[in-house]
């Protein structure tokens, strides 16, 4: 079938893209960046040796021997003894089979400290999904609704107000608004002894933290814990909404304005269809594919440009915050985490794009054959 073929071609393109990204990262790691890897191996070795010295008595030659032994072992483990080409393939293979190694994450981040990279990323995934899906869907929903109303009242005061808001929100960095929100609704409110003030960040209260990291589903089973999670979600979510609704509104308004000039909309009115019906079936429905196109062009920007940084501001345990910890909180960048995160987010991104393409094809009959 034609449809299956189209989808297969898109899927193949995306897989090739994923492979290229993977190759580039692995090659960078294997070649130009292997010095960093060596440095990190040295650091790891030193900490192992320090541990050993605490527990046993070794003389200096023994230590020397141990050190070289550990270094070669680790180098072998990282494939550093092989030529760059092999090493690249080796890294690629490990990435694909989710063998992402161990993180040297600072231990203050709960039980994930020093754990497997896969575990850390898995533990951060629900947080990102919660904030991002909720954030994107809700802001798109509200924004499109506003933009639609705005377009139907083209030129009115409220329409202009919406446009200025859109322009403004388009220019404010999300993280900056996040800081302001924290200052006002958490810090200042607490300072003036307001009975209600928001948490200064975090994804959930410390007593549920452990549970969230190990079994997020269970959190939703405990009403208090779920409420607590929502309570923590409010500020970041509001930040995300304020920033993103404007863009959606602007976009939806443009699309709607343009589609309402199409002949088929006029004809729908001539047919005597009620206004709500015209809006839904003759403006919004045909607009859906172009709205979707724009969604999938902007999603990476929304996620990587906005949400990741917002997670950091609110210490929201998600991929962005983990990225940040891996980059700046450790003495040297936590390479395994950074690299695995990059791969994981590319993977996620490609899956999202593919789903979008399917939806797009489903929405537009012209593309179906």
């Amino acid at each position, binding site marked *: 079938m034609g449809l299956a073929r189209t989808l297969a071609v898109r899927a193949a393109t995306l897989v090739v893209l994923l492979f290229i990204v993977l190759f580039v990262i692995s090659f960078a790691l294997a070649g130009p960046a292997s010095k960093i890897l060596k440095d990190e191996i040295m650091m790891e070795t030193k900490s192992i040796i320090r541990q050993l010295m605490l527990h046993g008595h070794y003389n200096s030659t023994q230590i020397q021997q141990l050190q070289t032994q550990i270094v070669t072992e680790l180098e072998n483990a990282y494939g550093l003894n092989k030529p760059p080409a092999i090493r690249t393939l080796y890294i690629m293979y490990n990435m694909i089979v989710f063998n992402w190694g161990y993180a040297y994450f600072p231990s203050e981040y709960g039980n994930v400290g020093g754990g497997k990279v896969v575990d850390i990323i898995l533990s951060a995934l629900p947080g990102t999904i919660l904030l991002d899906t909720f954030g994107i869907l809700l802001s798109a929903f509200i924004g499109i609704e506003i933009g639609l109303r705005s377009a139907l009242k083209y030129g009115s005061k409220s329409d202009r107000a919406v446009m200025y808001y859109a322009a403004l929100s388009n220019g404010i960095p999300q993280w900056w608004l996040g800081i302001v929100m924290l200052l006002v609704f958490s810090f200042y409110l607490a300072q003036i002894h307001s009975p209600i003030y928001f948490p200064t960040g975090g994804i959930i209260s410390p007593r549920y933290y452990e549970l969230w990291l190990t079994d997020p589903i269970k959190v939703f089973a405990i009403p208090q814990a779920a409420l607590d999670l929502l309570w923590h979600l409010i500020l970041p979510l509001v930040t995300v909404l304020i920033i993103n609704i404007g863009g959606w509104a602007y976009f939806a308004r443009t699309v709607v304005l343009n589609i309402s000039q199409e002949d088929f909309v006029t004809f729908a009115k001539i047919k005597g269809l009620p206004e709500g019906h015209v809006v839904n079936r003759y403006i919004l429905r*045909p607009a859906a594919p172009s709205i979707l196109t724009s969604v999938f062009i902007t999603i990476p920007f929304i996620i990587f440009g906005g949400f990741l940084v917002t997670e950091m501001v609110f210490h929201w345990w998600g991929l962005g915050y983990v990225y940040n910890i891996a980059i700046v909180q450790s003495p040297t960048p936590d390479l395994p985490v950074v690299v695995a995160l990059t791969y994981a987010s590319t993977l996620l991104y490609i899956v999202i794009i593919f789903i979008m393409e399917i939806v797009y094809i489903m929405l537009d009959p012209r593309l179906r054959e």
Partner: protein
Amino acid sequence: MGMALLEVRNARLYYATTKGIVKAVDNVSFELNEGETLAVVGESGSGKSTLAKLLVRVWERNVTLVDGEVYLDGKEILHIPEEEFRKEIRWKKIAMVPQASMNALNPVIKIGDQMIEPLLLQGTNKDEALKMAMDALESVGLPRDLVNRYPHQLSGGMKQRVIIAMSIMAHPKVVILDEPTSALDVITQANIMNLLKKLKWEYKLSYIFVTHDLALASELADSIAIMYAGKMVEIGGAEDIYGNPSHPYTQA
């Protein structure tokens, strides 16, 4: 002389543009009897389509003035509330096939669904409505299974015929046809003209037939009106005008 089905008196419709007011329809009056066809002829930009839009009360945002009276069966309909006009008159009594009607179909909805939409909203049940749609398609010479297709799968002429089929499905009293054959080859054009004639007899329809083509107009029309710069400069029996034109446009 009995009461006319449709009577238009001193109708005016002006547009506001950056270059000033455009008097697209300016003091137009005419009558149309049941079962009769009025052809509206005129050069491009003379206000024919605007007149049609005025009659169905669907016009652009930049309209500044709408004035005059329109009587349908003796009842004034230009100034009744919009919602009443939509429910009682539009499409049920006055249907319209717009100019460039091949763009008038929604690209993401199946032909059949678009055809039965007004009926469903009136409470007809779906199967019955679909059957009516297929009959209508058949009567304009299209296959019945077109109901399951999307507009992009049809040729331009087929789309125009679908719109015509839609317009007669509602059994209106007046059908306004705004250059319904402009984009078609001569053979299809002739087919559609024959179809219109047939439908006219079958359903006792009254047409307002907008065209550039005087010869085509005289084929279907009982009377012909000539528009020039928003005004109706001449109106009379089809034979009179075709045989003995008095306005320079008609002579050309």
